[in-house]
């Protein structure tokens, strides 16, 4: 799938083909995509644990349930528990010097091994590593970027996915051996969509002119109609929802799975 269509086709999929497992190779692609994501300090901000629903015994599956996260866990064949590793700053000094050595960070932009050792590490990074609010803020942003890559890789492979809040963290921590330094971020559910991949049509978004500006906030970034038309042809901009049959689609899926209507 072309990139623009991947971006345009992404939806939060909530009805999965519960009977169809996700191929391990497709998970690997998602993880490689996440691992290629932009990251400051070249740090490993995130950790993730993938669990196949059907590999869990009934007791474990029940332990993950609660009144707000039950049907989702039944329908999705694959769970990915995403975390921030709050120790991600560790080793930043060596990683940055390695980037200097391979000229990814160069003198052209002010970088040197001496800058990393004498100033950046002792005056900036080490203090940051002791400021939990800063660690959490940076960790959340950078982990989110990685997750975004994984989401798009899933869509590109015909998978559906949706992010959910962690609601059974202590249970998961115990069951999956999660270290104390990992901070829960999202539960990503993955599977093949039982609903149409368009999931009733593209979700409403405000015009980019309300979100982006040129030079000054008084100057909205106005879209070029020709570019807009091209993005429609290339699939980034798709038919907005709801499709005329969306309510019926949801009803039929709900009945198939015995869910509330």
């Amino acid at each position, binding site marked *: 799938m072309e990139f623009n269509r991947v971006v345009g086709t992404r939806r939060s999929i909530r009805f999965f083909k519960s009977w169809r497992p996700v191929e391990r190779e497709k998970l690997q692609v998602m993880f490689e995509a996440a691992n290629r994501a932009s990251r400051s300090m070249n740090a490993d901000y995130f950790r993730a644990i993938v669990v196949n629903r059907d590999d869990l015994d009934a007791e474990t599956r029940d332990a993950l349930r609660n*009144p*707000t996260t*039950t049907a*989702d866990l*039944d329908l999705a064949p694959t769970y990915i528990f995403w975390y921030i590793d709050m120790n991600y700053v560790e080793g930043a000094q060596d990683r940055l010097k390695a980037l200097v050595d391979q000229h990814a960070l160069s003198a052209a932009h002010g970088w040197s091994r001496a800058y990393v050792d004498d100033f950046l590490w002792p005056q900036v990074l080490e203090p940051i590593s002791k400021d939990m609010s800063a660690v959490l803020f940076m960790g959340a942003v950078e982990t989110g970027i990685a997750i975004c890559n994984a989401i798009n890789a899933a869509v590109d492979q015909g998978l559906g996915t949706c992010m959910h809040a962690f609601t059974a963290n202590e249970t998961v921590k115990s069951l999956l051996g999660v270290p104390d330094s990992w901070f829960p971020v999202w539960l990503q559910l993955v599977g093949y969509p039982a609903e149409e991949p368009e999931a009733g049509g593209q979700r409403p978004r405000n015009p980019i002119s309300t979100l982006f500006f040129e030079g000054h906030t008084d100057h909205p970034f106005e879209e070029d109609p020709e570019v807009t038309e091209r993005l429609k042809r290339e699939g980034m901009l798709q038919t907005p929802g709801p499709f005329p049959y969306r309510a019926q689609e949801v*009803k039929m899926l709900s009945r198939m799975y*015995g*869910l509330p209507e």
Partner: protein
Amino acid sequence: MTDTARTGPDRTAIGVVGEAGTGIGGPGPGIGEAGPGIGEPGPGELPEHLAAVAAAPSVQRWMHRSGDDVAGARLADLEMLQRFCASLGTDPDELIAQCLRSTKSGDTAISAAGRRKTDQAISAFVAAEGASGRDAIVLGNKLRGFLIHNGIFMQGSAAID
């Protein structure tokens, strides 16, 4: 039939349950069919033990949800809700209230404890009804639907086996 048709000014709680002449299901005596007596709304059309349940604002809201169920299915839902409430010694509005709490600022919020307790009560009721497998899931989720359409976010199991 649209929701607008269901919520016309002359419709009582009972009228909401009884849809006017959808033709779905055909005439018949069973609860599950939209036969005469259910098709036209009127205060006398509901069994006496369901009248109070059907009049509750929370039940009105539930019945006004979008969808095009046949009238008989709505009646069966009412029967089930009535039995569930009776098993707990409560009524529909009180059941919703038990899932809510007041915040320090005076707002109304969902009570996690109340919701959990109600969810467990649903599971217990389903078991007591003797339902199993898919039937149990559907039954429980029907009751959860009553809570959901009154703003209580919750989920039950899906029937995937």
